[in-house]
């Protein structure tokens, strides 16, 4: 069975933000919620590298561990999803997440945040696949349609890969061998307790 993972090849990411707008386009994510974002290190200096970040769907997901209402669940493909019906917007998952993935629609008095929103690996939520309810709460379910996350499919330089962890790692490893350099699959050690291609 496939174990879905994201892999970001920082040698290829050019910070074009296609992944960010593709996500907005596919799921009609409102202004202010960023399921995916691109972060640049050493901006404007030699060694500048960019990294596209979203929920990494960790193997031992800290968000799941800390959620007081157990709203998270893991699919058979290893995708970490959650139920917005159960979420109380407490924000614990935000503090637990090493990638800053959880997003909240509002910031009001007394710490009210609204229901948490995050990357679903384009695979919806607990509602029936491709149902109206799932669409409204979580966006589209591409996995159920036999497709992969749109952010990776539309990546301008194929820097962002999404899919079966073994296959994406294989592609990355092949690239590193061909070109002779690679800065490692970013975030893999944290998310999956393993490295790829280095």
């Amino acid at each position, binding site marked *: 069975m496939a174990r879905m993972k994201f892999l970001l090849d920082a040698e290829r990411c050019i910070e074009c933000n296609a992944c960010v707008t593709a996500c907005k386009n596919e799921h009609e994510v409102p202004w202010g919620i960023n399921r995916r974002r691109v972060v640049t290190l050493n901006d404007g200096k030699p060694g500048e590298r960019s990294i596209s970040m979203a929920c990494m769907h960790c193997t031992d997901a800290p968000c799941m561990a800390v959620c007081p209402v157990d709203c998270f669940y893991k699919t058979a493909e290893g995708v970490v999803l959650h139920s917005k019906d159960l979420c109380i917007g407490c924000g614990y998952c935000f503090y637990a997440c090493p990638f800053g993935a959880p997003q909240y629609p509002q910031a009001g008095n007394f710490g009210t945040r609204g229901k948490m929103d995050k990357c679903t690996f384009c695979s919806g939520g607990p509602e029936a696949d491709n*149902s109206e309810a799932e669409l409204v709460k979580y966006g589209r379910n591409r996995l159920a349609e036999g497709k992969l996350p749109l952010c990776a499919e539309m990546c301008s330089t194929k820097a962002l890969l999404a899919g079966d962890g073994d296959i994406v790692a294989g592609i990355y490893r092949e690239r590193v061998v061909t070109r002779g350099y690679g800065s490692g699959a970013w975030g893999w050690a944290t998310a999956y307790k393993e490295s790829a291609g280095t």
Partner: protein
Amino acid sequence: MLTRKSSAGARGTSLAQALAATTGGAVDRRTFLHRSGLAAGGMAAASALPWGFVQEADAANRAPLKQAAEVKRIKNICTHCSVGCTVTAIVQNGVWIRQEPTFESPINLGAHCAKGAAIREIVHGERRLKYPMKLANGQWERMSWDQAIGEIGDKLLKIRETSGPDSVYWLGSAKFTNEAAYWFRKFAAFWGTNNVDHQARICHSTTVAGVAQTWGYGAMTNSYNDIQNSRAMFLIGGNPAEAHPVSLLHMLKSKEQNQAPFIVCDPRFTRTAAHATEYVRIRPGTDIAVIWGILHHIFKNGWEDKDFIAKRVYGMDDVRKEVAKYTPEDVEKITGVPGSQLARVAKTLAEHRPFTIIWCMGGTQHTVGSANVRAYCTLGLAMGTIGTSGGGANIYRGHCNVQGATDMGLEPITLPAYYGLIEPAWRHLSRVWGVPYDYMVSRFKEKKFMEAPGIPESRWHDGVLEAKENLEQPDNLRAMVFWGHGANTQTRGPEAKKAMEKVDLLLVVDPHPIQVAAMSDRKDGIYLLPDCSALEQDGSRTASNRSLQWGHKIVDPIFESKNDLEIIYLLAKKFGYAEQMFKNIKMDGTKPLVDDVLRELNRGSLTIGYSGQSPERLKLHMENQQHFDPRTLKARDGTPVAGDTYGMPWPCWGKPEHKHPGTHVLYDTSKTVAEGGLNFRALFGNERNGVNLLAEGSYPKGAEIKDGHPPFTYGMLKRLGWDKDLTDAERKEIEEIGGANPDAVPWQLDLSAGIIRVAIKHGCAPFGNGKARANVWNFPDPVPIHREPLYTPRRDLVAQYPTYTDRRGGRLPILYKTIQDKDFSKDFPMIVSTGRLVEYEGGGDETRSNKWLAELQQNMFIEINPADATRIGVKNNQDVWVFGAENNVKLKVKALITERVGKGVAWMPFHFAGHWMGQDRRFRYPPGADPIVLGEAANTLMTYGYDPVTQMQETKVSICRIEKA
């Protein structure tokens, strides 16, 4: 969530087919996506949810997958940059509900940048201009189309009557389809003026002129895809990671798979430079000295391609003499680049041939733009990399159809397809249009205005403000039409504002109200007509690599907007020449059939081979994208498009039925002309001062003339005895066109395309076989030399490298020395340059109105080096005032402190508008049509300066002073 979800699940099959077609043998990323994608889908459907309290996925509750019949998959082309990414729209009930990657496109292989991945928002269009409007008594009023065309038409006709047709300026667009661009140019001709232009003037006009004058055609010689074959990449004055992100898909392939060194020369350490193997920081405006500095080492070490130069290049010895003056010490003094670094660059290039030379607006938008581009070309000629796969000059054009609009003559200096404005050109086009030549003459004030180049768009405001006696036309401009063109992309903002307030009428035809609505303080006399985007109409557009791609209408024009062809028809009808102008076009009410426009365009556009790409062939290519190889662009055998090159890059010689495949790499002699081979064009005569200008012993594979030769004429065919290959019909047409002197009919005026067909049958290029010119004797600097920018803080260099003397051009005076002589450097000590951001495009009215993009860049800013910031006393993200050298301009923007720019250099993006010297002018926009993000326009500050050949504006070097706000 705004739209109902449809199932595109049924698309699995076609996705799989597409993927299978674009993959080779090995498992690569796309194969992987395909396989693991399908596998994942299967498993997702079968998976049970482990948590008892969440709702069980239940097959019975699934959305029905029956929509296959009503869900359409429609392909069009991205409307942003010139890469030409295919956009796949999923449309249901006339609504564009989703966007899918287009893996089968050989150009983008599914990829997009932020703009392409957000393009669906354009036809949601919450901030679009929704219906015709006018500004009256300071208020925006809604109008009907009839009312608007009536009022606008009456006013323009009155101006035409009192001041002549040259007093209306028709500024068109690089976002037009080829058909609309061609039609707009024709429309201006019927109106009776050459005062027509589009964005190419301020983007790559210097490239088009400089490159065409070097070797024949002013366009990218190879393609984005062909860069995969490069052994090295030399990029100067471009930031494709932001301006053409998907091109990096091909460039990184070269870098990774060929281990190609990637050299980036730029004043800014751009996001592209971050991926370079060698970054060369140059002082803005010193490109020629950089190139000559490299050539200095090449000549010194004898690394030039002597055989190539002897056979195919004229004037290289003149370059050699000039280059000798650019010693490493002098070059370092001018450019700031250490001699040792350029020596290393020269060696790298010499050892990695073929290398490709890539440039963009950092090279073109200068007072020396047309000289810069010739220096780049000369580097390629000296090294023998032009006309080779993996080599060439890969010139990245800007807008999605700026190449096509340029080709279609949307310019004040030529008719469609570079025929020029001379009488034979007008006679040729009159023949194509089916109107008497005398009728066309009668449309102009006088015949001399018909043959005199119009005012370039970069100077339109001077056409309004300049004293009448200084103008070479009967009266000043009195009406300005912005048809798909921003107003903040032109320099000298305050003068533009003044001109906007002086003209009788401002007409904006655009999907957005653009800055024109907000910039001036007019109380009336502005009309806005809603134009639809290219996504809402059928038609072809030409990518930077000269490939034509057919875009299918995704949805009907939204709100009350109409497409360009229809709006042109409505105006032509009002002006009384619709019947003559639309003679060859089938009409559906007021809507012209776009296929017919392309057929007429094909018939007349022989010079550049826009003649073989019929609507039928273009649509066939779009349907069969998966059959083209992403590296060679060649179609695979046994497919419906076998033999063709994707998009039939021009020249695609002769008639569609001649089945020329298109020309992937220009001037490549390793192929026959029939397969897309070529040689340099014989455009400059047979000899000069006794020196042969025709090629010597170099010719395309299979040519029967194994040497240089002049362009073909009917007479030449006769002398060769090849005229017997003409059909009777072709002979008859040639003789009809030739009248008393049929032997003089040249290949490009022969509407039968018989001369072209026969020349190619004998293996020869119809346009002759000449040498490329390293010495362009008809330019102000026959061999480029470094000249200091008009506004420069390096006063010490002005005496040795002065600018040009004042001159005239485009019906106007152009100042050089007068401006450079005055020293502003005390008050304005810093250099300021401008450029692009990935999220926005051009004037940005469209992209700043797109919520998915606007969210990513919410503030106008200026990049300042930390050393300068310390001196000024400004911190990151604080507001600063940026003062300009003309008109007491000041801009209020955010400071971005970064080492991206060097000491003494500041940089601003030019996409913002809507603020004016500190004032937010959102209140001036029609309600609901204001872009989400507004900001100061960089070009409010950018100063005077124009290229002497094309009047390209200087947007890359000016001076400024920055103070804390």
